[in-house]
Each structure stands twice: as structure tokens, then as C-alpha cells.
């Protein structure tokens, strides 16, 4: 499969983040067209395109917009989720920093389609300081041209955008955690139902969409759902950004029609493994996705195929691990992440993630016990599905898959009190570890 340039059409142009460059490429024409249509027509086009949310869950975007109740007592809100914090994911950053106007145009169309309140928010993670300055500049440019503000394109539609910076909490990428954080609270997810589409931010119906999802919307309006569906396969449509990192020769963001073959992506487009070593494992969709072994990677990277293979496409953050990586060490690092980022609200997740990290650490230190592999599976069983949000389920993904697929490596740590020959532990065990 050949790479395409749809979402990334502008990013290589000089000064691609300026409104002039965006307008030269036909920018804001889709928004102009959309604002002359009826909101229901736009929702129908998005439904017809079969666009699915790019943030991780793959929920059909048009359906989400259709859930917003008409005549709700409080205003409807559009929130853009730019809290890109899933380890291994860096696709939204490209759009934010290199083509911010594509995102703004998508937001104008989405807001009009769901009859949003005149103010929407982009929730960007605090670490993307540069990205937030780029977005603020882009918003100013759009306001100066009249694309944001009162009576946009003479349609009578008022709309403006505020960039809301997070402050370093992975959990705020979760829909309701994000809503809490916009309201000025600790980012602890809410009980669902009510779902955000009914009661969300400031008590109004709320649609939360990922950056890449919103950036697909202008193309659906300007080129039509059939053009959009010409990429990918039925139910898994459209252009898709893939992030590849880890032990590959050419890590980066690659754009393909939805469903590029994972093996082809790693070996043909990313140049294969560093040092031409053997592949050990691939995480196909960010840290939460269960690992795949080398014999399982000959599959199209789309929502349904990866799900069928027992993992998930998630945010399409592909992390490649070669034969020199110690799996127990790698899973320890991911568990440390989830233990650090657990918001502390639900006991199974708060306690369980910390215990999993401790057990993996003691295996690395040569203090593991014979039953530890099974103990990890048992703990995972007591975390999964037992908390308010999906963080607990995410945390057990790498643990369960690695114990099942690399049990010999776990047992080797117990019997020999060291990593398997030929594998490396990347950290020194005598260094202080930061507290959570």
C-alpha cells in the first residue's frame, strides 16, 4: 500500500501553520459550504462516510452527533480532545503544530452540525506549550478573517474557540475526565450514564472529539462521503495517521488509507528493525493495547482486524520492540506509567496498578516468586471492568498479553534471577525512582 497525503497534505509546505498557506490550498471552503447546509444534512454526510473516532474507541462519529438531544435546557458544547498522552502516540501533534487551521475548520463544521454553544474548547495537554501557542495564533488569524466570531459566512452562526491547557494528567484524555478538567476540577472520570452527549461540560450536552477525527470532517464535506469511503474497507474508512516508534530505523508519522498492513508498515515503510535484528513484539495501538508476537503482525491496521487479533487499534501508536528488549522490563515501565496516571478514584485500579508495578519490579530485581506470573493474571482479572473508566482495562492489556505470550521470560527471571541472555534492561536498579 502506498502512503497518501490527505490529512498531511499541508504539513510539508513552508510556513504551513499560517492561514495564507491554508487558504491557498482551498482552506475554509468546506466550512463555507457546510454553513449553507442544514445541520441534519451534515450529520447525515458524516454518518454516510462511516468515519469512526480516531482517539481510540473507534465510535462512529455521525452517531455520536446524532445522540445530542434537540431543545436541551442547557447549551450544547463541542470539546476537542488534544490531550494526546497515550505512550507511543504523536499524530495529533503534527496537525496541531503544522496545520492548525484544518482542525479549526473541522471544529466550525462540527459545532454547526450539533448546534453548539458559541464557545468551544480545545483541551490540549499542558506539555504541548508550543502547540498551544500555534493554536492561539491560528484562532487569532481566523477571527481576523471572520471565520470565527459573529455571523460566520453570513449564516447567522456565532462561534469561537478557546484553547484550554491541561497540566499533565493522562486521565484527562478520558472523555469525562476531560470534562471535569475543563470545569476546573481534578480530572477524575464521572459515572456513566448520563453520557456526555446528554449531560457533559457545564451541565449541557457535550460532544468530545479527537483532533484527527475533527480534521477528517472538512474532507467529508468538500469531497463527499463516497470519496472518503474510497479509502479503506467498509466500516473502517478514511485516511489514517499511524505513529511508529521504538526500535525501527525510521520512526515517524505515516499516513495511509485505513488498514495498512502492519508487517509492511514496519519492514517496508519504516525500514525494518534497528541493526536488522529480529522482532520480538509489537504494541499496535498505544500503551494500552495488548502485544502482538511476530507471527501475528501480518494484518491490516484497522479497528476490526486488530480487535479480531486480540488487541486494539486504539490511537494507532505502533511501538516496536526488538529481540534485545527484556519484556518484563518493558511491561514494568508501562505498568509504572499506569500506576502513576491512575486518578485514585476506584480502588481496583489505584491499588492494582501499583501492585502490578511492584511485582514486575521485583521480578527484574531477581526477587520474583514462582507464582508471580499467575499472580499478575489474577490481579488483572480483579482490575479489568471494575473501575469507572477504561484506565484499569488499559493497564492490564500489556500485562495479560505479555504473561500469556512470553511466559518463558517471566519464569526465566524467577529461576535465574536475571534477564534472559541477549536481552537488555535499560535502567540501573540502584537509581532512585520518582514517587508517584
Amino acid at each position, binding site marked *: 500500500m502506498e502512503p497518501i497525503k490527505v490529512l498531511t497534505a499541508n504539513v510539508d509546505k513552508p510556513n504551513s501553520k499560517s492561514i495564507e498557506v491554508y487558504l491557498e490550498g482551498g482552506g475554509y471552503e468546506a466550512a463555507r459550504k457546510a454553513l449553507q447546509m442544514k445541520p441534519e444534512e451534515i450529520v447525515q454526510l458524516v454518518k454516510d462516510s462511516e468515519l469512526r473516532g480516531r482517539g481510540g474507541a473507534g465510535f462512529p462519529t455521525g452517531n455520536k452527533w446524532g445522540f445530542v438531544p434537540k431543545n436541551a435546557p442547557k447549551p450544547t458544547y463541542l470539546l476537542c480532545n488534544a490531550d494526546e498522552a497515550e505512550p*507511543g502516540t504523536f499524530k495529533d501533534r503534527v496537525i496541531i503544530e503544522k496545520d492548525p487551521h484544518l482542525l479549526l475548520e473541522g471544529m466550525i463544521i462540527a459545532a454547526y452540525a450539533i448546534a453548539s454553544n458559541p464557545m468551544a474548547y480545545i483541551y490540549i*495537554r499542558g506539555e504541548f506549550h508550543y502547540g498551544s501557542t500555534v493554536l492561539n495564533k491560528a484562532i487569532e488569524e481566523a477571527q481576523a478573517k471572520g471565520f470565527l466570531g459573529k455571523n460566520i459566512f453570513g449564516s447567522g452562526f456565532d462561534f469561537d474557540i478557546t484553547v484550554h*491547557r491541561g497540566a499533565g494528567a493522562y486521565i484527562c484524555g478520558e472523555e469525562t475526565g476531560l470534562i471535569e478538567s475543563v470545569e476546573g*476540577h481534578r480530572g477524575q472520570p464521572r459515572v456513566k450514564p448520563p453520557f456526555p452527549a446528554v449531560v457533559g461540560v457545564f451541565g449541557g450536552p457535550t460532544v468530545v472529539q479527537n483532533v484527527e477525527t475533527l480534521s477528517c470532517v472538512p474532507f467529508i464535506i468538500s469531497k463527499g462521503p463516497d470519496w472518503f469511503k474510497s479509502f479503506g474497507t467498509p466500516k473502517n474508512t478514511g485516511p489514517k495517521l499511524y505513529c511508529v516508534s*521504538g526500535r525501527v530505523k525510521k520512526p515517524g508519522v505515516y499516513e495511509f488509507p485505513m488498514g495498512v498492513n502492519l508487517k509492511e508498515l514496519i519492514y517496508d515503510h519504516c525500514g525494518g528493525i534497528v541493526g536488522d535484528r529480529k522482532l520480538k513484539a509489537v504494541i499496535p495501538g498505544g500503551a494500552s493495547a495488548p502485544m502482538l508476537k511476530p507471527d501475528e503482525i501480518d494484518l491490516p491496521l484497522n479497528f476490526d482486524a486488530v480487535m479480531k487479533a486480540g488487541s486494539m487499534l486504539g490511537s494507532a*501508536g505502533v511501538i516496536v520492540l526488538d529481540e534485545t528488549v527484556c519484556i518484563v522490563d518493558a511491561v514494568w*515501565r*508501562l505498568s509504572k506509567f499506569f500506576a502513576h496516571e491512575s486518578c485514585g478514584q476506584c480502588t481496583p485500579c489505584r491499588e492494582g496498578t501499583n501492585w502490578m508495578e511492584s511485582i514486575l519490579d521485583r521480578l527484574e530485581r531477581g526477587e520474583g516468586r514462582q507464582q508471580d506470573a499467575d499472580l499478575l493474571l489474577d490481579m488483572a482479572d480483579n482490575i479489568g471492568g471494575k473501575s469507572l473508566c477504561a484506565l484499569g482495562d488499559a493497564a492490564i492489556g500489556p500485562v495479560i498479553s505479555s504473561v500469556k505470550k512470553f511466559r518463558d521470560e517471566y519464569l526465566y527471571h524467577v529461576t535465574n534471577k536475571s534477564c534472559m541472555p541477549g536481552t537488555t534492561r535499560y535502567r*540501573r536498579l540502584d537509581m532512585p525512582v520518582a514517587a508517584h
Partner: protein
Amino acid sequence: MADLHPDNPYAKDRFADPSKKVEFSPEAKKKFDWILTRYPTKEAALLPALHLAQEQWGWISPETVHYVSELLDLSPATVFGVVSFYNMYNQKPVGKYHLQVCTNLSCMVTRAYDIYEHLCEKLDLKPGETTPDGRFTVGEVECLGSCNTAPVVQVNNDYHENMSVEKIEQLLTNLK
């Protein structure tokens, strides 16, 4: 204050000193007033207000917590709860250069721990500590969303990408 156990490491820090007055600079106050116009509730301005405060003072002191709570009609406990939830709000002063090494998986397998360990040893610091001259604070940080240019070190607001021990050495000499 008096009723906290003297060994409690937070005893001195957790309570505001009424003799220390803090106030936004005129530019920050102007920005703060603009922020208030962008949200339907006052409380929603809390995260941006804390960012403003940290830009001005470098950290969120107990006095700042009280000041911000008064500005937004919130209890100091609510504000402190938010400050302590989010990693980026510094609960104690940091050095002029806050060096945060990403050690998450993609950075780890490209040898980020070598950089982190080198920094800790060279500057003789534990994570979160600051050098006596107030120049450097070292810390470990979770995924910065730049895994294609791993390993990444964040210095204050800027990313330094494709780092190595040699490059961090060079960087340390450049950061005066």
C-alpha cells in the same frame, strides 16, 4: 500549623504565611480578566489561572493557593486539591532549568535512562531536587508525545529531541 506533627514534611509548606502577600502583575491580571470572559463559570478559569501564577512565580506556593482561591471564590482546599492532582504544577520551587527526561517505553528503548541517570549523577540530584545554585532541577516524566524523536528531554517549556548523553552534556554547558 501548631497541631501538625513537627516531623510532617509538609508542616512548613502546607500553610500560607500571612506576612507574604502575592499578587498578579498588571499583565497577568489583564490576561486573567480575559480568561474569565471565556468560560461560563468562574471555577473553570482555575487551571489557566494556575498556569499564569506558575509563569509568574515558577511554582504554586501556599500563598498563591490562597490568592487564587480568593480570586475565584473557591476554598483553598479545592485549589490545593487541583494543584496536587496535576503533575505540571510545581508544589515547591524548581531551578531555572527544569530538566524532565521522558523514560516511557519508546524513549526507554532508545536509552533515555542513560540520560536520566547521567543527569542525576552529574548534578548529584535525586528526582525532584534542585542544585544548590538554583540552576537545575531533574525529574522523570511520562510520555511527552514525541516518540518519533525519542529520547526526549523537556527543559521548561521546550522539547529537546533525539537526545543522547553527549547532547545533554552539550546542553548543560549551554544553559547558563
